[in-house]
């Protein structure tokens, strides 16, 4: 049989959109249980700091009050956690337990399309979770608005960074319990050593280079600069780091995970 039409299938953008749309539909199906916690979590965090811990911390950090300092950090940790969960446990369950990917790969979607769609979706969740934190911070007057609106976009890129990292880890994992190592060995330390809860300049000199290597540091620095409206040339390095991280880790993540899907 010969077919004359050279490309009788949807173009790349439509294929990626198809994957994204699937995730969106599943996520919004339980809009209440999925949509509310991103708003509650920062609320609880800020309440804890504002009502209790904050009283003990009177020193300003990088020119910000403690609640401003922590709040701008939380914009990014929210994106980090959601993208990390989505592309570790979420991806693993879809791949191994629910077999959702097998169904999707029978449609005109390649394994690469599927994985990249997954990454874009994790970025979208990063955007949404940052946005939720932004709403809470704005309500409490911790952030002033027009400037803060850029934060969810950085959240998007933070989501991309942590999804490619998570997918790379997922490509190695054989049983779902192994993710515990990733979360307690990599994600949790990230929370403390990337300038979210205290400035990295307060870290001992020998740990500081380590803080510069890990991805969250760069997202947090960018976000604070954007929220405070204090730009400098070094931020370009942070942006460069983020782009390079996504491309390099993403390349290996796609390559390795593809072998789990098509073998």
């Amino acid at each position, binding site marked *: 049989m010969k077919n004359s039409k050279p490309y009788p299938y949807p173009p790349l953008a439509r294929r990626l959109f198809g994957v994204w749309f699937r995730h969106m539909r599943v996520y919004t199906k339980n809009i209440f249980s999925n949509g509310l916690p991103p708003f509650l979590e920062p609320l609880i965090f800020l309440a804890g700091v504002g009502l209790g811990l904050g009283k003990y911390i009177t020193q300003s950090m990088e020119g910000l009050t403690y609640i401003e300092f922590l709040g701008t950090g939380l914009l990014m940790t929210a994106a980090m956690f959601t993208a990390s969960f989505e592309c570790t446990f979420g991806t693993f369950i879809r791949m191994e337990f629910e077999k959702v990917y097998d169904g999707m790969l*029978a449609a005109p979607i390649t394994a690469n399309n599927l994985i990249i769609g997954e990454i874009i979706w994790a970025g979208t969740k990063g955007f949404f979770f940052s946005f939720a934190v932004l709403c809470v911070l704005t309500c409490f007057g911790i952030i002033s608005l027009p400037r803060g609106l850029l934060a969810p976009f950085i959240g998007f890129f933070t989501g991309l960074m942590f999804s490619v990292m998570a997918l790379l880890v997922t490509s190695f994992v054989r049983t779902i319990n192994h993710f515990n190592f990733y979360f307690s060995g990599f994600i949790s330390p990230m929370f403390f050593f990337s300038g979210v809860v205290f400035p990295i300049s307060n870290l001992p000199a020998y740990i500081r280079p380590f803080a510069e290597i890990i991805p969250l540091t760069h997202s947090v620095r960018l976000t604070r600069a954007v929220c405070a409206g204090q730009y400098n040339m070094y931020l370009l390095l942070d942006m460069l780091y983020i782009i390079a991280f996504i491309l390099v880790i993403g390349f290996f993540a796609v390559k390795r995970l593809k072998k789990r899907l098509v073998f």
Partner: protein
Amino acid sequence: MTQFAITVKDISKSFGKVNAVRDLSFEVEADTCYGFLGPNGAGKTTMMKMLYGKCTRGENGSINVLGYDPASDELAIKYLSGVVPQDNNLDDELDVISNLMVYSRFYALPRKAATSRIDYLLGFMELSDKRTARIRELSGGMQRRLIIARALMNNPKLLILDEPTTGLDPQVRHLIWDKLRQLKRHGTTILITTHYMEEAFALCDTILIMDKGAGMLRGSPAELLAKNVEKHVLEITGSHSLEAIADGAILQKLRIDRTQETTRVYCDDDQLLRSLTGRLEGAHYFLRQTNLEDVFLKATGRALNEKQ
């Protein structure tokens, strides 16, 4: 000239040290139903997955599906085919209609066209009253029908089904067979794997019996029976000594297949078999025409392999 929907030449595939498919070649004529029959681990599923790019293939050989090579044009093949995988893989979190709507996006069907197509498919698979049901509320048979409906989303030229009726009750099985016959009549080429001999007999124009990754026998169901197995079989339950009832001259005309509890005596001459039954005092026996199962057991052997 005969048109082939699928042409496979000398394909092999191994996973580590396991040779899943060995040097397999076959051709599927357009608008026919082709069946893979074989024990578990025979390589049926692997061969099917290689057709739509879910499995990579070994270095040698060639595959052509609907005019495309899956190694370079996976997307075109997937766009023109529908796949019903062995495991149910619906989105549990979505209801019936959302499952299909999400899937229609993969083919970039416009919303309106998708809606009417989905209405038609739910009607076709007799699921119209389950539109808003959650997947977990569906019986196994309904889930299977929904997966077939999903595979038909883009009006495929080729429908690939991996054990579509395993574990279903006879009513659902017959309903699915009916639908598949209808599809074939309207110009869909069907490739199916099954363990059920009667399913292969009922649906397939051509059957390929596979074992250990290789093709053992092929032909139409009638041909397979005529060429490969005697016309009749006498099944005797219990341990009976055949030698006691049949002398050497008769034994030469018989093919005997023994398991622990059953002896099967194959012969073209049913009169001869009938005369033997007279001497089987008190034994349980059953004289019948041979069927595909006899061909299958003869071709693939009785011993279990490590995957069964």
